[in-house]
């Protein structure tokens, strides 16, 4: 049984990592390839059935996205085996989401990253750059990919590590994605947040009146809520890097004033529930590693 419906925005995390790795073609001192893969994490690229997804499959496989994820997760001590899968999720074309999704399946302990989801992001990305010149095609795709991968990793950690979750788990998984994003260097942080913003700002919120409340019965927040949450945690965790995002009016001033407190709360939660499972030396190496190409960092 699927753990959650597609967590589209955050899902780009792993992918972003992978893309970054792929972009960094040479194994330098800071190359991701020098980090040992997590021994508890297996990977598999399943060839798609649909011919139109073949190019996405070949691109991701050649980019070694899952191999990067294996290494990004290296610092995490997992009590069970985790399988990372890239696959076509809707080969029979009978799913309501058309497979444009990503999941963590707690029963199988698998993270599924669907080719359809990545293909959808590639299709929706700006041709070159957004009209305001702020978000490039590469950043929107990679950022969303990494964010989604981190989001699903959040679900996985909550489950495998028996993390107490008082709030809504989908929001908690978004928070995990935001927090891990800030573990990268500032350039990668910006790319991931740009991917968040681009993806969520494309989706319109449902009308909010209670009379139309069925639309608000989902266990995910609305697109706007998720965008503001991601922006707020980024700003709260690194005001210097993300001041520009606030100055552009993407985050209301009233919310921005509260972001440092929100981030402090998230930091406390991470430190108390996740950090005991993390190898600090390996984590420091992950933070210094080049995961993205120069094009993806623009």
């Amino acid at each position, binding site marked *: 049984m699927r753990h959650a419906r597609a967590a589209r925005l955050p899902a780009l995390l792993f992918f972003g990592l992978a893309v970054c790795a792929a972009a960094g073609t040479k194994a330098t001192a800071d190359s991701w390839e020098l980090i040992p893969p997590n021994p508890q994490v297996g990977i598999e690229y399943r060839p798609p059935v649909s011919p139109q997804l073949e190019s996405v499959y070949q691109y991701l496989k050649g980019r070694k996205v899952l191999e990067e994820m294996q290494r990004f997760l290296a610092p995490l001590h997992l009590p069970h085996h985790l399988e990372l899968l890239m696959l076509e999720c809707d080969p029979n074309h009978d799913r309501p989401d058309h497979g444009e999704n990503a999941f963590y399946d707690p029963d199988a302990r698998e993270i599924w990253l669907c080719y359809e989801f990545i293909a959808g992001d590639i299709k929706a990305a700006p041709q070159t750059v957004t009209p305001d010149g702020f978000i490039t095609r590469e950043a929107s795709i990679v950022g969303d990919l990494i964010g989604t991968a981190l989001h699903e990793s959040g679900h996985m950690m909550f489950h495998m590590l028996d993390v*107490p979750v008082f709030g809504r788990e989908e929001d908690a998984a978004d928070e995990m994605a935001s927090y891990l994003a800030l573990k990268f260097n500032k350039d990668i942080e910006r790319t991931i947040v740009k991917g968040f913003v681009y993806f969520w700002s494309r989706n319109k919120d449902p009308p*909010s009146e*209670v009379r139309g*409340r069925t639309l*608000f019965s989902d266990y995910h927040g609305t697109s*706007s809520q998720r965008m503001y949450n991601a922006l707020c945690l980024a700003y709260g965790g690194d005001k210097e890097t993300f001041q520009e995002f606030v100055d552009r009016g993407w*985050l209301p001033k009233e919310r921005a004033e509260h972001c440092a407190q929100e981030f402090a709360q998230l930091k*406390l*939660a991470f430190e108390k529930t996740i950090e005991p499972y993390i190898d600090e030396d390996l984590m420091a190496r992950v933070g210094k590693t080049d995961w993205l190409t120069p094009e993806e960092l623009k």
Partner: protein
Amino acid sequence: MASARIAATILAGVASLIAAQPSALADETPSAQATPAAQATPAAEATPSAPATPSTPTAAQIDVKYEPPTDPKFQPIFEAVSRRKVLERLQGFLAPLRLPKPLTIRLAECGGADTVPYQSGEPATICYELVRKIIDITYRNTNDPNERAQVIYATFVEAALHQAAYAVFDLLQVPVWGREDDAADRVAAFVMTQFGDQVAVSTILGVAKFFEYSQHAWTGADFAELASPESQRFYNYLCMAYGADPLTFHFLAGAPVPGSKIGQIPDFRAVRCEREFDQVRQAFNLRIMPYIDPDLMTKVRATQWLMPDEVPGGAE
């Protein structure tokens, strides 16, 4: 499950302390701005007699305070709530909680705002403005005296538990994953489900009806707010209730119940509710239960906080 029910009773006691005094809130008349749906006197509709204040241990770390309002329109609320010793009852109910620092819970004016964000080390505040709003919105939306009483009491209880949850998160340094305001809602709902069937049905549905009454249309930057839209909170509360007890709350899912006054949880959400509830229960047991004195908790649990005839009869 037993330990969770006992633990939750501690916080739930707070709510029942308040709910045990229907007239504390219901004998308020709507404000002049409200358009009363009926002219019935609320006091006459509510259960008029309140039981004697239960004899419970006091919590040395918890102080309560009624700050006299400067705005005359809040004076009746001040008088009613303080006369009924609502906050003192809350104080007694929280006695089993072993807090590392003193906490003040107060009823106060908030400068026109419905709520003020809890700040670490500061008092937990229930605003007169919110109480006034609860009364006004309820009166605009229903003429049914039982339903008015149910919604007002339940929503006041929710406000108190919500603020108490914020303070507990802070004072116990609880790791909170997920938006804190939603987490406070989930803890409040969890506690409400521990009251026993009758009170759980009344409080959960009362809060849900208030969210339904609100009809606040959210647009644009509204979604940047710390609190979730009322329509999301509506489903979050119903889902916690259904997840806690699918038998008692069976009417919240599945085939629509003819004549029901409460909305239903869509199937795709309903199948997840038991897991949502268990997630909160496990988090509560792991992070809050260790700070609860089991002997005092037993006394609180044994206390008759809410008499059957004090539960408004608006449940479906």
